[in-house]
């Protein structure tokens, strides 16, 4: 074994507390080798062990009638019928992206893809929730450009469409940007593959890229504050061409029946994949590091075990099938290296240069990590948030206010982003990014469509973590309902600051509890997710930022819905809750006559502080709204639908107008007319606060357009579901958005504002 002495300093450098080190000594009954210390260090990092979050996460509902695989595997799986299943998961790649945006984001994409195809699912869609700081800052522009290019280059190359995402620009992300990535895959139910090292005597096979020194201690790195103070070597570099080859090789390997278990080497590399596979199967694994293909000279066991080089896979193959596996892997030119075999002794045994360099009970490292219940304390800032709504003076021009909101980078069109992503490859994207509240993908050879979305409004979570957490789930589920889908399940990425700060942990705990309750009421099980702590620099944590990815199914009689108006004369209804007030809204961040020196607007690219309180959310109303919309859809009562979110009613109406564009075609020549738009003619009711009516971001609200002949049926149905329904006006053929005497704007002007580039 190695001769390096294990000192308390070395233990501390590995991020283990003295108590954790004592547990290591107890488990081994002796001092660890350096390699073993490294293994415990990464496996017991927050990123791999969830040691601070595990107890809180237990409150999520994870079961449902269609859940085939819940949390604990590489990704969750839900039954779709037709012998098909959908597999999905979200993950963070925040810390690497803050240092090296291009490779940080690219490897995030590569990593989440591997989680999906190792389950036997072909990746069919990527989604990217991103959070950035103030966009006028040149450094932030560099980060934005790098992240988007990284996502684009990886996703485009592997041929998986990036179909949705969301982007917020908020000051709290100035030091810690968030890059979350979600992947959705489709599989035949009978080809579900689990990451288990089953069957003693079976071979442990390594394929993919060779191992280098890149990314050593990446997982520990993601479990520390202030990524900027860390070494750059913890950021890995992706190779999407190898990524594409291992997708194809892995899916073929699974289809051939040659593999009994597969796991990718992601965080904590070979260490994590070997211990977790053994631990899940209750077996042991013995590997010889001399057989690991290496791209750097003279790597020691510690480096090989902890490397996070990308595009590497570990498969368990029965001896009699190794020739089949080898043929497939070599045909795809990804290599086939037998590292060792599955044992029945429950040990992870690692050999290097003829010596045993690590020998640890696999289950103790993978599943018996320390668990903590960090101290929780309500943060003092919450006392500064007003409990009652702040009164708002009217701005001088309502139309101007709307245009400012449409130009605001968080609300404005993200065409400049998604046009860099191939969102059409695989020819399944039926509702493209920007065209609906969620993206819709057809499932070829079936009558089904899938709807996918990511959501997470952290402003509301900062104002009220529990209500905000509920709102995130409610909005995600609502967005798939808006395009016509029944929500099937949810994956979550929880981005927070340092959990050892009681105030941060309190917001984490509250957020999760709120989300869990919403999941239970709305019937959307959580099938997996990711926790990213330590998004904190210079003592400032990001807003509590839980993000959800929701998958829904559209099957006849449900139909696909989009926000764009379809027919002039259709009646426009506002369905659901009351506007409440402007707390947490973007309008309240832009229009702050009391606070700005100029007594007026902040620049839309540099909004002012968040103003509370958080609006209330009634989960029963939310559920009723979603059930009503689904039933109205089944009965064919809705021609266009759009939920109210950032920017409130006025922005939602504007978006329905903007997305109504159509061209006329001369069938003979194929020539088209210029795009023609429908408008909206809205009657403004007498309200106490017009600003709230127009711009409030209160939850559980949606717009629905209905054929005039069917409005009575729609109203009766709303009554049955106890959902408030207010007639607002009608779709017009004037290409103007007219709100009584309040505003009257041509759709072309709305469109121009909405397409404003942020920099």
């Amino acid at each position, binding site marked *: 074994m190695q001769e390096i002495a294990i000192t308390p300093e070395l233990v501390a450098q590995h991020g283990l507390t003295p108590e954790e080190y004592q547990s290591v000594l107890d488990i081994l009954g002796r001092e660890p080798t350096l390699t073993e210390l490294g293994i415990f260090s990464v496996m017991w990092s927050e990123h791999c062990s969830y040691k601070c979050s595990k107890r809180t996460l237990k409150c999520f509902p994870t079961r449902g009638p269609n859940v085939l695989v819940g949390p604990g595997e590489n990704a969750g799986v839900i039954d779709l019928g037709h012998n098909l299943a959908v597999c999905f998961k979200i993950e963070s790649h925040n810390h690497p992206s803050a240092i090296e945006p291009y490779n940080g984001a690219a490897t995030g994409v590569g990593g989440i893809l591997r989680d999906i195809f190792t389950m036997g699912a072909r990746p069919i869609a990527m989604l990217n929730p991103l959070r950035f700081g103030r966009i006028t800052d040149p450094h932030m522009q560099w980060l934005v450009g790098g992240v988007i*290019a990284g996502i*684009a*280059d990886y996703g*485009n*190359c*592997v*041929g998986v469409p990036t179909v949705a995402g969301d982007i917020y620009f908020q000051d709290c992300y100035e030091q810690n940007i968030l890059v979350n990535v979600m992947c959705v895959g489709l599989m035949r139910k009978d080809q579900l593959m689990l990451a288990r090292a089953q069957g003693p005597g079976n071979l442990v096979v390594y394929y993919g890229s060779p191992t280098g020194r890149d990314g050593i201690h990446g997982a520990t790195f993601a479990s520390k504050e202030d990524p900027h103070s860390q070494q750059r070597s913890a950021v890995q570099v992706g*190779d*999407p*061409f*190898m990524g*594409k*080859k291992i997708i194809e090789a892995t899916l073929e390997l699974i289809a051939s029946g040659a593999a009994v278990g597969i796991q990718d080497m992601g965080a904590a590399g070979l260490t994590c994949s070997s211990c977790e596979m053994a631990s899940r199967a209750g077996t042991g694994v013995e590997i010889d590091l001399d057989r690991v293909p290496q791209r750097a000279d003279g790597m020691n066991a510690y480096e090989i075990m902890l490397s996070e080089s990308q595009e590497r896979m570990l498969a368990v193959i029965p001896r009699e099938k190794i020739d089949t596996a080898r043929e497939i892997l070599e045909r*795809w*030119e990804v290599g086939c290296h037998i590292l060792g075999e599955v044992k029945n002794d429950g040990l992870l045994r690692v050999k290097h240069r003829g010596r045993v360099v690590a020998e640890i009970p696999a289950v103790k490292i993978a599943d018996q990590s320390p668990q903590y219940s960090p101290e929780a304390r309500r943060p003092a800032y919450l006392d500064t948030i007003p409990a009652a709504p702040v009164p708002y003076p009217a701005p001088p021009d309502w139309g101007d206010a709307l245009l400012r909101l449409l130009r605001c980078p968080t609300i404005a069109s993200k065409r400049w982003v*998604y*046009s*860099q*992503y*191939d*969102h*059409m*490859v*695989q*020819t399944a*994207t*039926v509702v*493209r990014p920007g065209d609906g509240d969620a993206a819709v993908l*057809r499932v*070829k050879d079936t009558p089904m469509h899938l709807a996918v979305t990511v959501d997470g409004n952290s402003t509301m979570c900062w104002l009220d973590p529990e209500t905000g957490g509920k709102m995130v789930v409610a909005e995600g589920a609502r967005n798939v309902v808006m395009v016509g889908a029944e929500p099937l399940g949810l994956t979550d990425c929880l981005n927070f600051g340092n959990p050892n700060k009681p105030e941060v942990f309190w917001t984490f705990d509250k957020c999760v509890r709120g989300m869990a309750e919403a999941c239970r009421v709305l019937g959307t099980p959580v099938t997996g997710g990711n926790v990213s702590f330590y998004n904190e620099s210079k003592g400032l944590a990001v807003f509590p930022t839980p993000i959800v990815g929701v998958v829904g199914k559209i099957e006849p009689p449900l139909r696909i819905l989009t926000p764009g108006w379809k027919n002039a004369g259709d009646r426009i209804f506002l369905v659901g809750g009351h506007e409440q007030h402007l707390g947490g809204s973007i309008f309240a961040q832009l229009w702050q006559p009391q606070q700005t020196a100029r007594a007026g607007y902040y620049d839309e690219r540099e909004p002012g502080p968040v103003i509370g309180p958080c609006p209330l959310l009634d989960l029963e109303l939310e559920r009723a709204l979603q059930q009503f919309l689904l039933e109205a859809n089944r009965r064919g009562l809705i021609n266009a639908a759009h939920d109210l979110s950032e920017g409130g009613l006025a922005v939602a109406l504007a978006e329905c107008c903007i997305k109504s564009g159509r*061209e006329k075609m001369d*069938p*003979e*020549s*194929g*020539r*088209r*007319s*210029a*795009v023609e738009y429908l408008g909206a003619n809205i009657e403004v009711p007498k309200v106490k606060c017009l600003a709230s009516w127009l711009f409030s971001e209160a939850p559980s609200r949606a717009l629905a357009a209905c054929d005039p002949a069917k409005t009575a049926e729609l109203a009766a149905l709303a009554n049955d579901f106890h959902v408030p329904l207010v007639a607002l006006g009608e779709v017009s053929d004037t290409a103007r958005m007219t709100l009584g005497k309040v505003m009257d704007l041509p759709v072309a002007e709305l469109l121009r504002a909405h397409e404003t580039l942020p920099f």
Partner: protein
Amino acid sequence: MKAAVIVFPGSNCDEDCRWALQHVCGVPTEMVWFRHRVPDDVDLIVLPGGFSYGDYLRAGALARFAPAMESVREAAEKGRLVLGICNGFQILVEAHLLPGVLLRNTCLQFLCKDVFLKTVRRDTPFTLGVPEVVRMPIAHGMGNYYIDTDGLKALQDNGQIVFQYCDHAGRVTAESNPNGSLDNIAGIVNRAGNVLGMMPHPERAAEDALGCHDGRYLLESAIRYLIKG
């Protein structure tokens, strides 16, 4: 008739092309691994989009050496139809089956969006019955077609320019050029007219479910041409 789609390592529109040919147009379609030869009974060979060899070195620069390309060259010489889409177009120019090169887009970014195309030649095997203006998606980072002055003149004189980027009404304008291509060139044929390379994706616009069926005209033109023999 029979079609084949070549699968290079890194191709990612291979399955989409098979779907459009076989499922949408009803043509039996074989997937040919890049190490193998295209069977002799194949009438239409498609080089699909994607990132063959990860675009390493230069888009299409490595794929041109793939063993399958020899049989593609032979098939082209025998007058069989060869269609290169996106990365397939890049491979065809690298293999010198078509003239010119494809540079990075002038915006220096990958671009995925619908464009309008003017069908300049409506008498090639690929464009019989294709309307004068069609809409199709592009999705590329290196679609900026370039050729020297003499080469451009030869293309024009020989009527080899098949598609040009245009606006909705069919006007070939600078604004409608998404990537900086010389003369708004989106697709060209060889002199014999049996090898077409184009950056836009007809297979992504072959069904109304995807918002447009203009790409189907092109695939069906090739099929009709071959069936009539």
